[in-house]
C-alpha cells in the first residue's frame, strides 16, 4: 500500500519538532482521573505547560503491563464511570475546546475488541484521535486493527523493549507508523530513580532498524531523565510520575499541577 499523501498529525508533529531541534514531551493521563471530568481541564493545561502530544489512557480492570500508580488511576476512573464512549467523547470535546496536539488512545485490547474494532477506529477518527497504543496486542495479532487504522489514516503505534530481538524490531518496518514506543526498562510502568545505563545502546538498535521517530517511556520522572533521554530519542513519555502528582493534589488544583509539572520537566520551572 502506498503511504498516505498527507502525513498524519503525529508524523507532522515529530517533523515540526525535529525542524526546530526540539523533542516531543508526551504525558499520559488516564481518562476520567482523578475526577470524571478532570481530563477536559488537565489536557489543555498540559499543552500550556509544554506537552506536545497527549496519551489518553482507557481504564481497564486488569492492566497487566502497569505498575501500582497507573493501576490505581484506572481503578479510580472505572469507579467514576468511565467507559469507551466517554473516552471518545472526551477526545471530541478536547478538539472542540481547541486542543490541536496529537491525541493518542492507549488501552488494553479487550475493551477495544468489545467495542468493536471498526467502530473503535471509526469513532476515534471522528473524535479527532490520531493513533493507538495497545500494550497487549503484539504485531503478530494486530493485522485486523492495523488494516483498519490504515484505512482510517490513524497510526498504530507499536512498542519495543530492551528484550526485543533485532528481528522482531525489524519486522515492524512497514507495519508501525507514527513513532516507535521504546520501553526504557524491563518491567511495568512506574517512576524510577535512574535511567537504564543500557538505554542508549537499545535506542541505537531500534534506530538502525526503523525509520520512525523514537519515544521513550516507563520510569521517566525528572528533567534530568528528559534531558538524558532526549540526547538519543525524539521524545519522552511520562505517565506514572504525572499521575502521582495528580493523586497528591486537590482535584481542583489538578490542571495547575499538570501545567507546572510539564514546565518542570522542560526545565522551565
Amino acid at each position, binding site marked *: 500500500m502506498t503511504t498516505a499523501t498527507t502525513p498524519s498529525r503525529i508524523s507532522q508533529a515529530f517533523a515540526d519538532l525535529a525542524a526546530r531541534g526540539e523533542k516531543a514531551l508526551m504525558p499520559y493521563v488516564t481518562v476520567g482521573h482523578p475526577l470524571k471530568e478532570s481530563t477536559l481541564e488537565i489536557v489543555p493545561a498540559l499543552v500550556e505547560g509544554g506537552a506536545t502530544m497527549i496519551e489518553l489512557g482507557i481504564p481497564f*480492570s*486488569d492492566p*497487566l503491563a502497569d505498575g501500582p500508580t497507573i493501576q490505581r488511576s484506572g481503578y479510580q476512573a472505572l469507579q467514576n464511570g468511565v467507559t469507551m464512549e466517554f473516552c471518545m467523547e472526551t477526545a471530541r470535546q478536547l478538539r472542540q475546546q481547541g486542543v490541536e496536539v496529537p491525541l493518542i488512545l492507549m488501552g488494553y485490547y479487550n475493551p477495544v475488541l*468489545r467495542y468493536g474494532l471498526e467502530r473503535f477506529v471509526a469513532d476515534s477518527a471522528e473524535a479527532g484521535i490520531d493513533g493507538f497504543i495497545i500494550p497487549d496486542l503484539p504485531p503478530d495479532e494486530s493485522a485486523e486493527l492495523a488494516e483498519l487504522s490504515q484505512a482510517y489514516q490513524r497510526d498504530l503505534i507499536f512498542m519495543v523493549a530492551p*528484550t526485543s530481538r533485532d528481528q522482531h524490531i525489524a519486522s515492524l518496518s512497514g507495519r508501525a507508523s507514527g513513532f516507535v514506543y521504546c520501553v526504557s526498562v524491563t518491567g511495568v510502568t512506574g517512576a524510577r530513580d535512574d535511567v537504564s545505563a543500557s538505554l542508549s545502546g537499545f535506542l541505537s538498535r531500534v534506530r538502525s532498524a526503523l525509520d520512525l521517530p523514537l519515544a521513550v517511556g516507563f520510569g521517566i520522572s525528572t528533567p534530568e531523565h528528559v534531558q538524558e533521554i532526549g540526547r538519543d530519542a525524539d521524545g519522552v513519555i511520562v505517565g506514572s510520575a504525572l499521575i502521582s502528582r495528580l493523586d497528591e493534589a486537590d482535584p481542583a488544583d489538578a490542571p495547575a499541577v499538570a501545567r507546572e509539572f510539564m514546565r518542570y520537566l522542560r526545565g522551565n520551572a
Partner: protein
Amino acid sequence: MTSTIPPFDITNLPDDRGRFGEFGGSYAPVTLIPAVEELRTAYNDIREDPDFHVELESLLKNYVGRPTPLYFAPGLSEAIGGPKIYLKREDLVHTGAHKINNAVGQGLLAKKMGKPRIIAETGAGQHGVATATVCAKMGLECVIYMGELDVERQALNVARMRLLGAEVRSVTSGSRTLKDAMNEAIRDWVTNVDNSYYLIGSVAGMHPYPMMVRDFQSVIGRETREQIREVEGRLPDSIVACVGGGSNAMGIFHPFLEHTEVELHGAEAAGDGVGTARHAATLSAGVIGVLHGSRSYVLQDADGQISEAHSISAGLDYPGVGPEHSYLRDAGRATYHPVTDTEALEGFKLLCKTEGIIPALEPAHAIHLAGTLAKDMTSDQIMIINLSGRGDKDMHTVTEALGVMS
C-alpha cells in the same frame, strides 16, 4: 451444524500460532515476547526429546505416585442410579491434586532452560503447593502470587507453601482472587524475565501454555483410556470434569477427543446461579475476549471490563477459561454445564457419604453434574468422573457453608 469446525484434525491443535480455531494465540506484552518465544522453542525441543520423557515418567511414577487408580464407585453409582460410575483418583497423587502433573513437567523444563526462579499464580492453592513442592525438590527459588481473599479461605495451603520454602505474596488488587494473582505474576515475569520462569497452572495464558499444560495433564486421560479398556473392555460413554481454567478437564478430555462416541462434559462454577452477578460460568455466560494472553470466552461487562468471578471453590473462581475449551464448546465436541455453590456442596456431601472420599470443592461440581447427566443414562452405560483433588483444603469453607445452610 459443523460450520464452526475447521477442516483440520481436532486432536492436533493448536496450529503453530497457538490457535484453536479462532481461540488462543499469544497476546503478550512486548517485554515478554522473546521469553514466550524462548519457551516455545524449549518446549518444542523437549517434546521430541526421549530423555526428557524418561525423566518425567520416572518422576510421575516414583514421586507423584502415578498411575492413579480408576476406581469403580459402587456406592455413588447406586445413590445416583443409572450408569456405572468410575472415579479417576487424581486426589491420590502427591500434594493431593492433579496440579502436580503439570508442575513436575514445567519444573523440569525450567531447569533445562536454566531458570533459577519460578513464579506461579494460584487460586485454591493447589497449583501453588504443587509448584512449591517441585521447587523444593529441584532446588529452585519459588514465588507464589495468591489473591488476598484466597489466602484467607485456603490458609492450610498457604502454610504448606511456606513450609516448602516458597514466598507467598498476597495480592490486594481487583477482586483479590485468581485473575488478580495472574496479573501480578505476569507483572513479576515482565520485571524479572531474565532469570524467571512463569509456571502457569492452567490451560490458559499465551501460546504455548494452553498446549503445554494440556500435554502435561493429558497423562490423566491416557491412563484412564487404558484402565477402562482393561476393566470394561471398552471406552466410557461419558466423561465429566470440572472447569475453571480447565486443566484437569483438558487433561482427561484430550486423549478422548478422537473417540467421538465418548461424550465430554464440563462442570462450570455457577456460584449463586448464572442468572445472578455472582458466578464463574465463563462458557455458559461469557463473551469472546482477550484475557491473560489468549482469546477465549471471558466474563465481562458491556464495556469490556473483566467481571469479578464468584465461586465457593477458589480453584474455579476465574472469569476466563482455556482457549481449547472455548473451541471444543463451539465445535460441539464438549458440553459445559453450570453447577451452583449449593449443588456443589450436595455433590461434596454425596461423595463423602457414599464412598468415604472427601473431594475438593472443585470436583464436587463434577459429581453433582454427573448426578444430573446420569438421569438420562442406563445401567449398561459407563461414566467417568475426574476426581481432580482431595478436600482437606476446603474443610474450613465447607464447615462454614454447611453450618450456615443446615
